[in-house]
């Protein structure tokens, strides 16, 4: 049986973070200089290197700040390279630097992880893909949220003016089930090798389950998907994208019929 040296001291540390408003509402892991060192040891990057900057908020996320927030989120040090790649992906996107995280639209960053890093750190890519229960998924996504709150000052009701937001604002990190897909993985489609690991970042508003057990006809299934996407509202237009996350069974319906990803699009 394990024992807790001083439960009162642990509670006091958690309450300290809550009082500082350095949380998303859930308890965070206390981070000291020595624990931070374990994260920084996982990268060759300098602690003061800037990963992502929002000039109009007068704030920048450095490697050091990304590490502190990742540790607070509950990441293990070996997850940190994925968090760093996630920040690189976020920085490539047009909307986060243009203030979308402050917007009434209430979006969240969604991360998609590919490659051998998935089994290496225990990222779930099978059932319950958007669900709870997997430390790597839960804490890597949360690392981005805590950084948005702490580094960029994007607190709800203040600089984050989301009218409703989305549950994905706590954490949204999924991994592709490359092994059961009829197609090449997302990162390979974009020019990387299967042996590379990669993170793709998107801005997402909400997640909708598409119920379609009635057919194995690819045309019908494609219509079901398209009808659902069309229903999501007036802001779906030619420059808005919808991410379709297929379960292996549905993917196989298209795969067996010889449809490529682009044919489906």
């Amino acid at each position, binding site marked *: 049986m394990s024992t807790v040296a001083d439960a009162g*001291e642990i509670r*006091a*540390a958690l309450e*300290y*973070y809550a009082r500082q408003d*350095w949380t998303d509402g859930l308890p965070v892991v*206390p*981070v*000291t*200089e*020595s624990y*931070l060192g374990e994260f920084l040891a996982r990268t060759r990057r300098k602690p003061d290197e800037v990963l992502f900057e929002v*000039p*109009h*908020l*007068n*704030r*920048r*996320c450095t490697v050091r*700040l990304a590490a*502190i*927030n990742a540790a*607070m989120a509950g990441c293990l040090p070996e997850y940190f390279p994925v968090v760093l790649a996630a920040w690189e992906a976020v920085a490539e996107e047009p909307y986060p*630097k*243009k*203030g*979308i995280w*402050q*917007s*009434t*639209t209430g979006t969240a960053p969604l991360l998609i992880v590919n490659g051998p890093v998935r089994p290496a750190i225990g990222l779930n890519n099978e059932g319950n893909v958007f669900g709870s229960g997997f430390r790597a998924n839960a804490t890597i996504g949360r690392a981005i949220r*805590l*950084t948005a709150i*702490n*580094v*960029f*000052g994007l*607190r709800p*009701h*203040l*600089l*984050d*003016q*989301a009218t409703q937001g989305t549950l994905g604002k706590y954490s949204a990190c999924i991994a592709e089930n490359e092994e059961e897909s009829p197609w090449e993985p997302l990162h390979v489609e974009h020019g990387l090798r299967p042996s590379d690991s990669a993170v793709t970042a998107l801005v997402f508003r909400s997640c909708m389950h598409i119920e379609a057990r009635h057919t194995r006809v690819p045309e019908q299934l494609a219509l079901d998907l398209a009808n659902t996407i069309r229903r999501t509202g007036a802001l779906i237009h030619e420059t808005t994208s919808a991410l379709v996350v297929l379960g292996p069974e549905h993917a196989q319906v298209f795969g067996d019929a010889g449809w490529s990803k682009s044919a489906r699009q």
Partner: protein
Amino acid sequence: MTGPEKLDPTGADERSADSTLAPRPASLRGLTVGLLDNTKPNAEVLLSEIAGELRGRYDVSGALMYRKGYFGTPAEEDMIKQIAQECDLVVTAVGDCGSCSAATVADGILLERAGVPTVSIVSDSFLASGRAMPEVQGFPGFGFAAVRHPVASLDAAQLRDRARAVLPDVLRILGFLT
């Protein structure tokens, strides 16, 4: 607390905290007002109505309209410089969304730092984000004005009412007791 020190996870404010307002004019007579349109619907009409009031009642001599590139972020540096060169005071509108409310307040701060008295106008649904921006910009206490939400869906007469209603706040921020 005992034990090792817990690290601060927040982003440091690296800009010099210049929180000095630009000098206020003694009178508005003969001055040029810059109108910075943030591209939100009805911003231009609201600003024109305010300029009309300033001209008609306070003898402001002219009004120059500027339109920034994107509502969610502050105006480009060159535009801030140009406005500061060409205008004696500025009114900017309208911060009626999450990102643009904060950006409209940021524009006001940038223009004050460039030496021009500026009134940023948000809609009153977004007072909180407007107030949060001066904190991250290192300009706590920066004052701005609010019109009643909404703005985008109003007609011309309603916009005139909004302009008249906000005028006392515009004058107060420019340094005049009303």
